[in-house]
C-alpha cells in the first residue's frame, strides 16, 4: 500500500485538514469508530504541538503493513516533523499534566496512550520528529 498524504501545518486550518486526512485514511484502512476517534485526536494533538511550539511543520499520514510470522498487520502511521526549537527534556513532556502552554498537559502522553507505537526524536535547535502507529486489531 502506498497511500500517503502530507499536510502542511502553519495555521490552525492545517490542524483541521490533518485531522480530516487522518480520519479518511483510518476509515479506508478499516478502523472502527472508536479507533478513528483515537487516531484523529492523536493527529490533532501532534499538529497542535507543531503550531504552538514550532510555528510550522508537516504531518505525514500513511498506511503501513508489517508481516510478523504468518500474520500480516495493517496500520496507520503518523509522522509529525518540524524544524522548531526541539524538546529540552523529553521525559518531562511525557509526564501527565506537564504544560508550558496552559493546556491540560495531556498532549504527548495522551498521544502515546491513544496509539500503539510511539517514538520521539528531538534535537535542540534543529527540530523534532514524532512517529506514532496504530495497528488494526
Amino acid at each position, binding site marked *: 500500500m502506498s497511500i500517503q498524504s502530507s499536510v502542511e501545518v502553519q495555521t*490552525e*486550518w492545517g*490542524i*483541521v485538514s490533518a*485531522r*480530516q486526512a487522518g*480520519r479518511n485514511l483510518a476509515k479506508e484502512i478499516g478502523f472502527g*469508530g*472508536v479507533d*478513528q*476517534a*483515537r487516531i*484523529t*485526536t492523536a493527529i*490533532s*494533538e501532534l499538529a*497542535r504541538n507543531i503550531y504552538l511550539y514550532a510555528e510550522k511543520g508537516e504531518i505525514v499520514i500513511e498506511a503501513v503493513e508489517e508481516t510478523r510470522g504468518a500474520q500480516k498487520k495493517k496500520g496507520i502511521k503518523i509522522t509529525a516533523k518540524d524544524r522548531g526549537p526541539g524538546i529540552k527534556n523529553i521525559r518531562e513532556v511525557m509526564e*501527565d499534566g506537564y504544560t508550558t502552554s496552559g*493546556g*491540560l*498537559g*495531556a*498532549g504527548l*502522553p*495522551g498521544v502515546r*496512550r*491513544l496509539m500503539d507505537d510511539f517514538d520521539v526524536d528531538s534535537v535542540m535547535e534543529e527540530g523534532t520528529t514524532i512517529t506514532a502507529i496504530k495497528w488494526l486489531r
Partner: protein
Amino acid sequence: MRIPILKLSHYLLISVQVDLDDQTALQFQEDLLSKIHEEGSTGVVIDLTSVDMIDSFIAKVLGDVVEMSNLMGAKVVLTGIQPAVAITLIDMGIMLEEVPTALDLEQGLEKLQQELEG
C-alpha cells in the same frame, strides 16, 4: 465560522454541528459568555452529538466555558458526547470531572431543571 446560540426562556441551547477548530471554539466561548450576560440566562445546554473528535485543547475550552459560565451564574450541561469521543478522552486521561453531562438535549434540560429547582 460561528456556532449559533438559541434562547429558550431562561436557558441557552447550543448544538455544535461543525468540526471544532481552535478559532471557532474560542469564538464560541466568547459569544456564549456575552449571551449569558445579555440574557441573564441561568442554564446552558451544549449538545455535542455531531462532534466526532475532542482533543485536549477543545476539552480545555469546554471545561473553561463551564467554569466561566458557573462564575456568571449559569449552570452548564454537556450532552450527546459520543461513545468514541468519551473513550478517547478517557484514554487521554481527560475526565472532565467537574462538568455535568446528560445523554441528550431532552435529558440535559431535565437535569438543568432539577439542579436549579431542587
